[in-house]
């Protein structure tokens, strides 16, 4: 941006392009017609501009970014009311006429041309920081809708910089994606966002009871669907009440394709995190286009498939580790006796794992987890194939000299050469400080190199690695250390959460701004801001300093009617009453 008077020199040499016409009104005033669209009324352009501004609901205290210079009448009306303005104009021809009209003051900052680089303009950033509001000149929007959209997007992105958002995560009842929900929720919270985890696993026991105690498969299926439908409604109600900016639905969550459409009506950006193998779980086809964003763990071929299915915004976002859960632990002597081994694997007994691990039974091998029904492996199975939780997983890793990782396959007998869905175990073992060897799943080298996670392509290579690292403790420890450092540096769920937000903020900033971003503060912060010598500051200073500055926390301390109140208490009581009475009226109105 530069001053209008500077532009007038630069634009004066521009020829007036075809389609830009100066017209004379009945009042003798000039007006402009651009590509057949009148920039102002032909009757009384200055009066009309005053009315336009009067009815625009512009906050008199804040500066105004005017999109569209027109012939400058509306800019003149704004400056006449004492507003500080900056003007953005896409068309050099219009800009030239506007600055020549002398309706735009010489000191007014003006930007002419493409708006996509505005975010990098220091003068514009400074203007926005002053709390600027947008005024779009309607004829300009008619001529240049994309330009206006770009300005709105740039502005929204700037407004959202560093702002905490509201994020809801809807989890499944059961399955591998369930623990990821709490990891991701914790990550968003750590990043300063307001977070809600809708935990559908609370209904798992009920679901099991309802579906497993009825013999008829048909009846059982119908009952299961009914319960899933109830959970979908519950999830919607929780999310809608929480009113987040972004709702992430995890794979296997009990919600249908209509769920994101309902949330979109609330201006909530919706995302699905498909932490599954698309080749094994084809349901992605029916849902990927319903969500605003579709996150997945398999780059390449799948992305092409998503495009074909009409999914406009998709991104490869890998799983990761949660350092609060996936961390090195020390084992007691008893624990060491239980968990200590040369080689272990913790996870489900998929077909290829059963086949593959049968070739390792001559090692001190421990297998943990469910579905290991093979007779050859029973002697290696710990705890009779019970499930294990994250804490126990950390102990398994700590007790194993070598942690095996092998990506699952229901069809291939050993290492699946087509595998491109990296499992979370890679990151979790690394973050727990364990040494692991892994099959070379495609894309793994983007996350760990062989000095951090050595890989094997077949049983022979696997055995060679085991032998090598069992014999070399120092190398094992050094490799595990490098892997852990890399995991913490690049592969935590905080990194994944940031990736998700960057993607969403880049594509949907206007919706997020329209929905509103919530600031969260403590009473101590607010007291410091307003000063303790004010009635509010003095009142807040008496509350525990970490009390959240929220209505729920503050109103709780305000007595109901029938007691004399201090000034600050009185104002809060007034606000409480204002909100509750307005909501009562709205409810009556809704109820017809």
């Amino acid at each position, binding site marked *: 941006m530069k001053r209008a008077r500077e532009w007038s020199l630069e634009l004066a040499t521009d020829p007036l392009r075809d389609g830009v016409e100066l017209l004379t009104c009945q009042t003798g005033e000039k007006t402009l017609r651009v590509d057949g669209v009148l920039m102002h009324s032909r009757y009384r352009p200055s009066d009309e501009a005053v*009315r336009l501004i009067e009815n625009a609901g512009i906050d008199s205290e804040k500066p105004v970014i005017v999109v569209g210079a027109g012939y400058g009448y509306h800019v003149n009306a704004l400056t006449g009311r004492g507003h500080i303005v900056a003007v953005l104009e896409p068309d050099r021809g219009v800009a030239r006429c506007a600055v020549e009209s002398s309706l735009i003051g010489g000191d007014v900052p003006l930007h002419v041309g493409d708006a996509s680089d505005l975010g990098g303009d220091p003068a514009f950033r400074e203007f926005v920081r002053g709390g600027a509001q947008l005024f779009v000149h309607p004829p300009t929007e008619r001529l240049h809708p994309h330009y206006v959209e770009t300005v709105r997007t740039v502005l929204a992105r700037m407004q959202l910089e560093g702002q905490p958002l509201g994020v809801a995560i809807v989890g499944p009842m059961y399955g591998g994606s369930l623990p990821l929900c709490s990891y991701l929720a914790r990550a968003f919270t750590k990043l300063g966002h307001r977070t809600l985890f809708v935990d559908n696993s609370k209904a798992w026991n009920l679901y099991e009871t309802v579906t497993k105690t009825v013999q008829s498969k048909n009846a059982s299926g119908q009952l299961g669907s009914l319960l899933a439908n109830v959970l979908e409604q519950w999830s919607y109600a929780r999310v809608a009440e929480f*009113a987040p900016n972004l709702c992430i639905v995890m794979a296997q969550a009990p919600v249908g394709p209509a769920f994101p459409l309902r949330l979109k009506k609330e201006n909530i950006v919706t995302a699905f995190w498909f932490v599954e193998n698309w080749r094994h779980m084809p349901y992605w086809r029916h849902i990927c286009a319903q969500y605003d964003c579709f996150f997945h763990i398999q780059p390449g071929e799948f992305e092409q498939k998503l495009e074909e299915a009409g999914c406009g915004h998709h991104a490869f976002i890998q799983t990761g580790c949660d350092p609060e859960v996936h961390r090195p632990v020390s084992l007691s002597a008893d624990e060491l006796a239980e968990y200590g081994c040369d080689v272990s694997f913790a996870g489900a007994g998929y077909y290829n794992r059963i086949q593959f691990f049968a070739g390792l039974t001559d090692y001190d091998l421990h297998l943990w987890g469910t579905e290991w029904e093979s007779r050859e492996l029973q002697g290696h199975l710990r705890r009779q194939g019970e499930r294990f939780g994250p804490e126990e997983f950390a102990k398994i890793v700590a007790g194993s000299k070598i942690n095996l990782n092998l990506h699952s396959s229901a069809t291939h007998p050993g290492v699946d050469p087509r595998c491109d869905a990296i499992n979370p175990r890679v990151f979790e073992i690394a973050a727990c400080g364990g040494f692991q060897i892994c099959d070379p799943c495609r894309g793994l080298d983007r996350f760990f190199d062989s000095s951090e996670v050595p890989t094997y392509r077949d049983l022979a290579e696997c055995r060679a690695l085991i032998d090598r690292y069992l014999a070399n403790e120092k190398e094992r420890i050094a490799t595990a250390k490098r892997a852990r450092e890399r995991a913490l540096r690049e592969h935590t769920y905080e990194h994944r959460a940031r990736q998700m937000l960057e993607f969403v903020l880049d594509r949907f900033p206007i919706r997020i701004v329209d929905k*509103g*971003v*919530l*600031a*969260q*503060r403590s009473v101590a912060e*607010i007291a410091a*801001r*307003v000063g303790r010598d004010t*009635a*509010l500051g003095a009142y807040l200073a008496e509350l525990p300093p970490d009390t*959240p*500055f*929220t*209505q729920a926390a*503050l109103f709780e301390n305000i007595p109901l*009617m*029938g*007691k*004399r*109140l201090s*000034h600050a208490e*009185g*104002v*809060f*009581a*007034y*606000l409480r*009453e*204002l*909100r509750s*009475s*307005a909501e009562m009226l709205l409810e009556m109105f809704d109820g017809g």
Partner: protein
Amino acid sequence: MAGKRILVAQMTRMGDVLQTSPLVRALKQRYPDSHITAMVRRMGKDIAERNPDIDAVLVYEEDETYLDLKSEDADRLLKAYQDADAIVQRLQEGRFDIAYNCTHSLSSAMLFKLAGIPEVVGAHLSDDWRYVWRGRGPNYFITSVLHREANDLNICDSFRYFMEKPPAARGLVMKIDDKARAEASTILSLHGISAHDFVVCFQLGASDRGKRWPEERFAQLGRALADRYGARIVLLGVESEAKLGESFERHAPGLATHLFGKTNIAQLAAVLERARVLVTNDTGTMHIAAAMRCPIVLLSVGYVHFRETGPYGEGHCAIEVRRENVGRSDIRVDGAADEDAGIAPHHAARAVELVLAQHEGIPSLSDDKTFSTVDLHWSAFAPDGCLQWYPIVRRAATEADVVRMAYRLMWLEYFEDVGTPNAEGESIKRIAKRYLPPEDGAFWGSARESLEGLAVLGDRGAAMTRELLGVLESNARMRRAHEIVRALMALDEDTRVYAELNKACKPLVAIARFERDNLEGAEPLALARRTLAIYEALSQRARATATKLELVRAAIT
């Protein structure tokens, strides 16, 4: 009150601001040197600024504060606090001696409490922050909604009675300048309407679908008026009502000029000033028309109660479907559902003819089958100084009619402002002659008896309260005091049930209960004295209503 600073708060809708203008006029007449500030929402600002009796306008907008609160954002909560604090500060800076709170919300009462305004009439907070209503007029205003069938006073007169013994104010107050008139002329001329054209305005909208006359009927009426008077039909309303205009257009293509969202308040007023008549549902536009002295035909459909909210001024006509429970806010009837049995375009056309004729007195129509499905009423100020709606078709009075008339006389006496007995007598005579005697007069006796029975219950309450006072003053026998209080509570319950069984008594019991609920303070002796006054007033009002009933009976029969 000379030189005093007065605040009149009306923070509801635009029409309500206009309906408060008679109170403001009465205040200005009584206290010409006073400085009057109107506190209104943004939508009422234009109206308030065009009232010459108002010296300053304070704009209060709670919608933004509500949105700030709803956001659950800490910074916006702080902003909401600061905005509320700023309003309190502005009220304090106004140094008001008295506030008339015509907004019945608790939140408005809280603001005035926080601002420390020494005297508040209407909704306010007691010293111990209880929500109470002060003043006879406000008490009547707030309880009248509980028994609308017995309410005969326009809301403008109710507001006027917020002050003691108010001067009459015959109409709404709003002024426009020549600039607005010129702009209105330009707007009309752009649509080919000249100064000589016969302009008829329609307002198709209403705040609720249930209060709207169907657009198809409006279209039929428009065609009839165009045929008969060569009328140019102008459709008024805000932009969001344009879809009603589209519906009208489907039924009468090209007939009307659509001005939805094309005028500001002053231009709208100027268009109405220029119009020969406005045909309307119950809307803010109607009140602007009334202020501009534009004759109005009000289509009182659905749950509209035209006596209470109809146009405040003379020479307007309200049409209402004849049916039981008409105008009761607790029974919602869809305006469209009235179509078959209800108001037809030819009824409205006849009403237009009446208001155009500008009668000196109240017009009369014979009770033939043309009007068998509707009642038509004519507005005029009664000798008692308040607006009255007079039947145009003379029909037999119903029990509801005579009870309403008796109550009007009683309330005005209650306000201690009936003027002279002649005014009361003249008023009752004038309304009574618009009715035929009731077809079944049995209710006269039962209504009188029930009112007398209520007076006896009031007497009993007064006697028990006197005993309670004696016990409290002697500062002894607290057990006895508790027994009396319990007995009084039982009596109140008996009285409530009695009122349920005897509907002529219901409004009186409602107001007595309201007064009990509004007792301020906690000091037992003071409370007992005020309770005694309430029981005594109940008895007096019940006997007064019975007496007024006799006056009505004499006038009608």
